[in-house]
């Protein structure tokens, strides 16, 4: 009875497991990329993202790293890692071969995407730790070996046996040279060797061989002491650099910018100013449209619903927002109105020279929007392949919503509309907004918030039709007025 029950349970379990595995295999096989997500595919083929999914290519952390970024991130370890790899080969065990594989693959992948420096970091630490540990071994061993009055060679425990230790000395010297660390130096061992040989009665051959091997590896005392100190200083510099990099590069809150001027610290708190304004002076149910970089910040600090945020989960939705930003005012108004947006938020750094503003990110908006909506074509916004916003810019660029919202009334600040980030005067200086109105701009013009203007009640020139349409909704109005602009 018991055996029957056991077999029953086992067969049922196996059947369920097989079914689950079959379902999984079916799911994986049915997806076009066989279960690989876009991000991981772009690791294998770095051009994949820029061809098919521009939103992945647009993230700055997905770009390949530059050489200086290696030194910035792992500093001293950059030249200790190769030494560690070599040290892993002597002797090659399971653990050390795993380390070698780990470091090799992580170096490759970090070269594809700078974000994966995170993966390289532990591998680099381990290998350079191995290298440093081997170096310390040799140096401390040679110091210990040469300390006056220490007969350490007599107490060496049995190591390998060697019958022709003396003849093999010269060979070993030559053979051991490439195995030693880079700080190997020719030593004056001969005098010491003879003295010890003389005072040491013929002990076991193993002990002698070991002692002589150690003698060969022994570096001069002063050299090893100085090298030891230098290695410790190297470690100290590495710690100092890491602390500095963590403080300056990785802890800077990108939401509050500071500059040091002659009269102290100048703080640009514009982001928080805009979010505080939004949270206090707009209705709770109002929706804010901006580029996805500011989504989480707006949700957390301004407590308003956003259209797209940093999760970048819905590519089509982001492409819709990108299309709206790249379209002329009326088309953008219609897109935003269909999304029930009330406020549009734009980041503009031209007045103070803040380089990560929306005009610099604009080409990615075009590419991402164009990836889903084919009427947005990137060459329309480039003049001779160059991205410009000055007088040589294309008409599509000068009429798109992002240009207008960023530079609206910018000319009145200094009379010439000189954009400090692009270092040029802008192309179209005097224009009016027809479908949006400016509701807030922060102190240094970094964040500009616009409100969608509501539809007018009557449409001029269509008085007869509008009477019969008075009860119709605004959507039918929008679809029926393609020929005449209802807001003029």
């Amino acid at each position, binding site marked *: 009875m018991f055996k029957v029950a056991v077999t029953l349970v086992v067969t049922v379990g196996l059947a369920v497991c097989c079914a689950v595995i079959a379902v999984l295999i079916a799911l994986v096989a049915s997806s076009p990329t066989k279960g690989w997500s876009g991000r991981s595919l772009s690791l294998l083929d770095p051009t994949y993202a820029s061809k098919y999914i521009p939103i992945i290519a647009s993230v700055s952390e997905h770009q390949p790293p530059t050489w200086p970024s290696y030194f910035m991130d792992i500093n001293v370890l950059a030249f200790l890692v190769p030494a560690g790899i070599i040290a892993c080969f002597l002797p090659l065990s399971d653990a050390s071969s795993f380390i070698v594989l780990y470091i090799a693959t992580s170096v490759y992948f970090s070269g594809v995407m700078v974000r994966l420096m995170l993966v390289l970091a532990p591998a680099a630490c381990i290998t350079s730790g191995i290298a440093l540990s081997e170096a310390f071994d040799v140096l401390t061993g040679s110091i210990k070996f040469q300390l006056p009055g220490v007969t350490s060679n007599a107490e060496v425990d049995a190591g390998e046996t060697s019958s022709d230790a003396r003849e093999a000395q010269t060979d070993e010297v030559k053979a051991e040279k490439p195995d030693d660390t880079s700080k190997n130096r020719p030593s004056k061992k001969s005098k010491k060797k003879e003295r010890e040989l003389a005072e040491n009665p013929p002990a076991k051959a193993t002990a002698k061989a070991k002692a002589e091997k150690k003698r060969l590896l022994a570096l001069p005392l002063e050299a090893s002491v100085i090298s030891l100190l230098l290695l410790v200083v190297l470690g100290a510099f590495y710690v100092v650099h890491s602390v500095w990099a963590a403080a300056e590069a990785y802890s800077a809150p990108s939401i509050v910018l500071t500059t040091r001027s002659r009269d102290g610290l100048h703080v640009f708190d514009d982001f928080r100013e805009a979010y505080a304004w939004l949270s*206090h002076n707009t209705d709770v149910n109002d929706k804010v449209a901006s580029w996805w970089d500011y989504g989480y910040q707006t949700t957390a600090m301004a407590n308003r619903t956003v259209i797209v945020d940093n999760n970048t989960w819905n590519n089509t939705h982001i492409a819709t927002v990108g299309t709206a930003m790249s379209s002329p005012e009326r088309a953008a108004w219609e897109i935003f109105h269909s999304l029930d947006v009330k406020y549009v938020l734009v980041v503009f750094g031209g007045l103070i020279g803040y380089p990560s503003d929306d005009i610099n990110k604009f080409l990615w908006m075009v590419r991402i929007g164009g990836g889903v909506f084919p009427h947005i074509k990137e060459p329309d916004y480039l003049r001779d392949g160059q991205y410009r916003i000055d007088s040589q810019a294309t008409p599509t660029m000068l009429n798109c919503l992002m240009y207008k919202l960023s530079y609206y009334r910018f000319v009145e600040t200094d009379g010439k509309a000189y954009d400090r980030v692009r270092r040029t005067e802008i192309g179209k200086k005097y224009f009016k907004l027809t479908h949006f109105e400016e509701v807030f701009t922060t102190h240094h013009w970094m964040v500009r918030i616009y409100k969608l203007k509501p539809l007018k009640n009557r449409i001029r020139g269509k008085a007869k039709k509008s009477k019969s349409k008075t009860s119709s909704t605004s959507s039918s109005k929008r679809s029926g007025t393609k020929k005449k602009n209802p807001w003029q």
Partner: protein
Amino acid sequence: MVDALAIKGKRKKTTSVRLEVKPIELPDAPPIDTKYFTIYLANPLNSGESTTLEVLYVFTHFLEPFPAEIAQSESQLVFYNDTALILSPYHIKQQTTFIKTPSTKVESFIRMEPTNRVGTEIKYGPYEDRPPYSISPIHVHFENNSPFAVVEELVQEIEISHWGNIQVTEHYKLVHAGARHKGVFSRVDYQSRQSSNGASSFRYLLARLPPRVHSVYYRDEIGNISSSHLRTDSLKNGRRFIALCVLNARCFDYSVANVVSSFMIMHLHLNAAFAIIPVEAKSELEIEPRYPLFGGWKATFVIGYGLPLQDFLFESSDDKRYLNFTFGCPLIGMVVDKLTIKVVLPEGSTDPSPVVPFPVEHHLEAKYSSLDVVGRTVVVLEKKNFVPMHNSHFQVYYTFKPIFMLAEPLMLASAFFMFFVACVAYIHIDLSI
């Protein structure tokens, strides 16, 4: 309209004698929506004698912005509704009313003969022989661009610690209660042509804090607000004298925006009285909200600071201690719609009793803070419609046995002691069978 709180301070011509004022109920009064206050004279008045009284009324939310919504470049116009004759249950032999506006721009005003307007002053009267309870409504529509800053709600928490520190935390909800802002806010207009744009908006607020204040912070829900300046007086002897010129005639105190203080007197006295008033050293905190406040815009923030205990805590005669603190809002010239002051007494204090010079609602709460076993008693005082004239001192009396100060250190010491004894016992006790 007259639902505001009125406080009284009366002075005779040269000797300021404060007369007592009490609100009373008159059951047989005419059915106008009014409140009645009785003024008790210093000496009883015999027939044929005369005396001079000076009455100060303060109303809040009295000026009505009209138009109710203005654009950025327009200036703010307000309505002032009042009666040309004083509403009085006594027979009026002769009366004159002066209304002083902050600038010469007056849109319109109702004429009630004889009416005269000179510069910033409108004179109604003199009116002779009016029966009691006679009113003649007038209104004045004038320009008033002073900042209408109103604190909707202020919660001030004063925590007393007998280890030498008083920690004060204030939560503000600030709103611009003037004409609402409609339409576009253009930063370029605001920054370039400031005189004509955003004339009724305000950027800076000044708070007066006691001297020897430390660890001042100014933040809101998002984080620290970096735009503030603290100036502390470094006067050692702590006493300064300023000359205050009091014109005991009519005036609007227009620097205090929607608070109307009108001095009305029975007989015309045009003398200026100079008073030398001693002023203690103060610290001034100038704060700037994150954005300039236009009509209808709100801001919330938290100001906190620490004060030394010996300035504020004293011992009274019957072995009770009392906290002597200023009742009110440190922000100068601010109307507070709802003011809540919570005084957190140290643990183990009993018998709390507040003494406040004007009527407030009060009740007790309990607050549990760090290392609290029984909870701390909190005396909560609530007041509606607070104006700066209310800025007087209040006291909270309580008894506290000094032995309770040792409660927390003893608790901590015994906790650690027990823990170490337990460790020692565990190591040394052999629990094997």
